[in-house]
């Protein structure tokens, strides 16, 4: 072997090894290299203006305002007269040092916020003075403004995007704002617009050294799209004012389109509370889980209540559809309905018609429990097995959008509950029959619905058998919504003809029945009151039954309905005493823009149930503590 072989061989080996390594680094690993997302390229964002929001009549309801932050870049700060500077910013020295150190710890060579959101009047004054202090300057930011202090549950709010979301989603950088609830969240994509991007070279000290590829990749920001909501903000405000001092929800829908006219939860809060300097303080206050008012909990969408008597229309409709009753069917009522053999297996009734035959129209107008218990029993017992009968019943109920998420365009919601045969098969060990589940006949028992589901149910009755999925978005940048989800009607499983007698009966409610006192001259209201019993709870060791919930569903006018509404007032007592007057006021306001019974309006505005609510709280546990 040649003596030179070893060195030749070693050189060749190392050469191949090195070139192989270069291949691994540059060709294999190099493919994954992103020329823009790396340490040497700085991406600066130019933020677009978030879209404005208008109500159905064109009233501006969400706008933007300028906010001014004092910024600091610690490495550029020159020695300064701290006292004078603090006086200027209206902070004390300890706060100054805390803020300064926080900025210094973040990054000495990068700007960070020193003082957030100055008052507008301070800004002009400071702008003049601040340039004497090196390393400090004022930066403008755009934040939300809500000109109308209303509808916080619909608007939602925006706040800094979560760290995990910012990491996963390339559209967001840490520290940027994102819609967190309401339409701000639901329609974030329209509202946010597109950020402008400017790429520049930077060195390892993060200093920008020039534009990247002469700016050919840079983009301009495009502003967010303006939205028009289906909400009538005046109606919304009016309904909110009527709910003052009460807990509950109101949902008003235009039956012919499914457009949500008002969506009220009470108690609520001023949306401006979650904007600006006091935001974090307020959000702690509002979102405190021990706050019994739960102002950020949208009762109109999320609270699941037993629907009570309005559900009787459902059973009537199913009875007609299943042909177990017709308009000539009558039952007798003896102050209630004996559903079992034992004495206590008896459901009381307040219809007041004792022993005489009761027909459908009267049964609804007077809210007779016996009539619908009999009807329900027939529906369930139509098939051989009660379980099958109930499944069939459940199928009809669900065709009205009950028992499941409705599919409206807001991010909060609840499914409600419509029991099925399987539900009871699993729950009841012995053989059960219609009597075992008889409470469902009158909308108590295991049926649970949200106010918006109930409003939608009412709209379906008003439409005689179909509904449009309720929605809150009307137009995007002036163009009408074309989403088929909201423009194609959904049919219920009840034939159109069966709605006629029901509507007649509902009309009767306001003419002669339980809603009689809330009738309004010149408006043909069709509705149904409800009074929902609460289950017995144990508070401080004492069995307590909270006062009944007051409910009303209605639509008007009878011909060509313009509004369908569901009103739910927690612990308001009889449906006829609170929910009925409130609904008729809202209906009248919407249809005529006038109030013919100002004394009712005055009484409803002033009515507060706070005392009732306070009683339900445990006395030993003060609010806000555990």
């Amino acid at each position, binding site marked *: 072997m040649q*003596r*030179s072989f*070893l*060195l*030749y061989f*070693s*050189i*060749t080996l*190392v*050469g191949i*090894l*090195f*070139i192989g*390594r*270069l*291949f691994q*680094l*540059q*060709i294999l*690993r*190099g*493919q994954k*290299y992103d*020329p823009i997302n*790396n*340490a*040497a*390229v700085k991406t600066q964002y130019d933020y677009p203006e978030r879209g404005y929001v208008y109500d159905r009549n064109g009233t501006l309801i969400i706008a933007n305002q300028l906010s001014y932050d004092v910024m600091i870049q610690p490495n550029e700060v020159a020695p300064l007269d701290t006292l004078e500077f603090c006086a200027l910013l209206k902070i004390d020295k300890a706060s100054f040092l805390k803020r300064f150190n926080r900025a210094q710890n973040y990054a000495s060579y990068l700007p960070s916020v020193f003082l957030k959101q100055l008052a507008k009047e301070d800004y002009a004054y400071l702008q003049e003075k601040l340039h004497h202090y090196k390393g400090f300057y004022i930066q403008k930011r755009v934040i939300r403004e809500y000109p109308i202090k209303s509808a916080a549950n619909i608007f939602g709010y925006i706040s800094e995007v979560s760290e995990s979301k910012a990491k996963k989603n390339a559209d967001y950088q840490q520290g940027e704002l994102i819609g967190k609830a309401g339409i701000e969240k639901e329609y974030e994509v329209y509202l946010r617009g597109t950020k402008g991007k400017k790429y520049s*070279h*930077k*060195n*390892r*000290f993060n200093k920008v*050294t020039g534009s*990247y590829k002469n700016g050919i990749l840079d983009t301009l920001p495009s502003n967010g799209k303006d939205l028009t909501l289906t909400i009538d903000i005046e109606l919304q405000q009016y309904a909110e004012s009527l709910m003052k001092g009460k807990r509950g929800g109101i949902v008003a829908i235009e039956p012919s389109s499914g457009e949500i006219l008002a969506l009220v939860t009470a108690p609520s809060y001023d949306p401006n509370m979650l904007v600006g300097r006091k935001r974090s303080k307020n959000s702690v206050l509002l979102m405190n889980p021990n706050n019994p008012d739960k102002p950020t909990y949208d009762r109109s969408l999320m609270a699941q209540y037993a629907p009570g008597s309005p559900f009787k229309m459902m059973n009537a409709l199913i009875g007609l559809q299943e042909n177990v009753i017709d308009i000539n069917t009558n039952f007798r009522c003896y102050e209630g309905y004996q559903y079992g053999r034992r004495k206590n297996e008896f459901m009381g009734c307040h219809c007041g018609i004792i022993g005489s035959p009761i027909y459908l129209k009267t049964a609804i107008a007077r809210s007779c429990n016996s009539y619908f218990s009999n009807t329900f029993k027939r529906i369930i017992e139509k098939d051989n097995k009660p379980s099958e009968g109930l499944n069939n019943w459940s199928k009809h109920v669900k065709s009205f959008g009950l028992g499941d998420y409705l599919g409206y365009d807001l991010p909060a919601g609840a499914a409600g509950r419509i029991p099925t045969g399987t539900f009871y098969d699993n729950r009841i060990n012995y053989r059960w029959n219609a009597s075992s589940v008889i409470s469902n006949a009158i909308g108590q028992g295991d049926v649970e619905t949200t106010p918006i589901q109930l409003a939608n149910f009412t709209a379906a009755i008003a439409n005689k058998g179909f509904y449009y999925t309720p929605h809150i978005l009307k137009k995007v940048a002036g163009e009408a919504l074309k989403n088929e989800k909201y423009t194609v009607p959904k049919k219920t499983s009840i034939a159109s003809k069966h709605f006629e007698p029901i509507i007649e009966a509902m009309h009767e409610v306001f003419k002669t029945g339980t809603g009689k006192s809330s009738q309004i001259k010149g408006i043909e209201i069709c509705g149904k009151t409800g009074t929902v019993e609460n289950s017995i709870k144990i508070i401080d060791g004492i069995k307590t039954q909270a006062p009944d919930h007051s409910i009303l569903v209605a639509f008007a006018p009878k011909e060509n309905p313009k509004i369908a509404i569901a009103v739910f007032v927690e612990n308001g007592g009889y449906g006829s005493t609170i929910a009925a007057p409130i609904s008729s006021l809202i209906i009248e306001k919407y249809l005529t823009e006038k109030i013919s019974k100002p004394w009712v309006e005055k009484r409803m505005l002033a009515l507060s149930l706070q005392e009732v609510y306070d009683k339900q709280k445990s006395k030993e546990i003060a609010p806000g503590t555990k």
Partner: protein
Amino acid sequence: MRQERNNIFAGVDFTLVFLYLFLMSFGWLNIYAASRTTEDVELLNFSTKYGKQLIFICLTFPLIVVILFFNSKFYEKFSSVFYIISILSLLGLFVFGKRINGATSWYNFGVIGLQPSEFVKAFTALAVAKLLSDRQYNFTLVKNQIKAFIIIFLPAFLIILQPDAGSAFIYFAFFFVLNREGLTLNYIILGVSTLLIFIGTIYFGPESIITSLFILITIFVILNIKKAGKRFLRFNWYKIIGAYLLLGIFVLGTNYFYKHVLASHQKDRFDILLGIKTDNKGIGYNSYQSELTISSGGLNGKGFLNGDLTQGDFVPEQHTDYIFSTVGEEWGFIGASLVIIAFMLMMYRIIYLAETHSNKFGRVYGYGLASILFFHVIVNIGMVIGLLPTVGIPLPFFSYGGSSLWGFTILLFIFLRLDAHKNYDW
């Protein structure tokens, strides 16, 4: 022939000169890319790194003329003198040297610093060539081998004291020279296996390495007993026990050395390279950035002055030890491979030419040159592409630095002088 005596460039191998010029000028372009701070170009100016380097490059030409001016005989005759001056210059550092970054490796003359260790390599190569080419020198004698080791490792030892372990390590390159002249390969095998056991001990821990080595020895012994019978055991038992003991002590010693003797920053370098630790922000930052920078170049590179990681100064010491990362980023796989191939060609050519020398002095010197270049390339590029630990030595002809450039120029052009005259009978 007389005519050629007047022309100092006569007989000079232009392949090597061409490769030399290519590496030097390509190196300068990369130094320019890595060190420029503004758009203004200030050539031949001491205020910028690339300006300084350009001056160093220009000054290599008179240096080359001087080297080529002298006769081959001159280098052979005065090699001992050069060597002694070299040793003195290294010793002088301890008195007059300037401490930079914790090492006393530099003489300081105002704007220019001089790093003697960069020159000593060349003169050590001359001294080794002189020793081995002596007609009375018989390399098979252990005494003579030790003489050679002393000549080689005396400067290495002085450099370690600076301390500059990286530059000292280069002297192991002379094993290739000694092997070429008859030294048994066992030294290299011993060296490589020592290194492997050392790394293995750090990586897998002493227990598993001792166990596996003992198993290997035992298998070896059993195989031999099967072959040669019990006789093998009778004659070799002390060797076998010795092997067990030696390996055991070495592994445990390595472990002790690594855990208790090695300074923590040196330990970290091994740890990061072996993947025991990851630290992309602290000590591992250099390697991490350097690999990233090279990867980002892709096949074709981002183009001259368009390497944004280079331009953003993300790789520390990029104009000196990490200059190859600039090539990787701006010239891509093609450019980086080209540099490696250029070095390979240069080394092949030197070995080829050295083998044609009829005279032993030139051949030994040529081998010294090729081996030193080889080691520099391995250690430097190996570090930059993340295959070897961080050891700060320059890439020949390429990295920023006057001493290194001139040191390698002297090393190369003395060989070219010797080579140009190889065919004369002098």
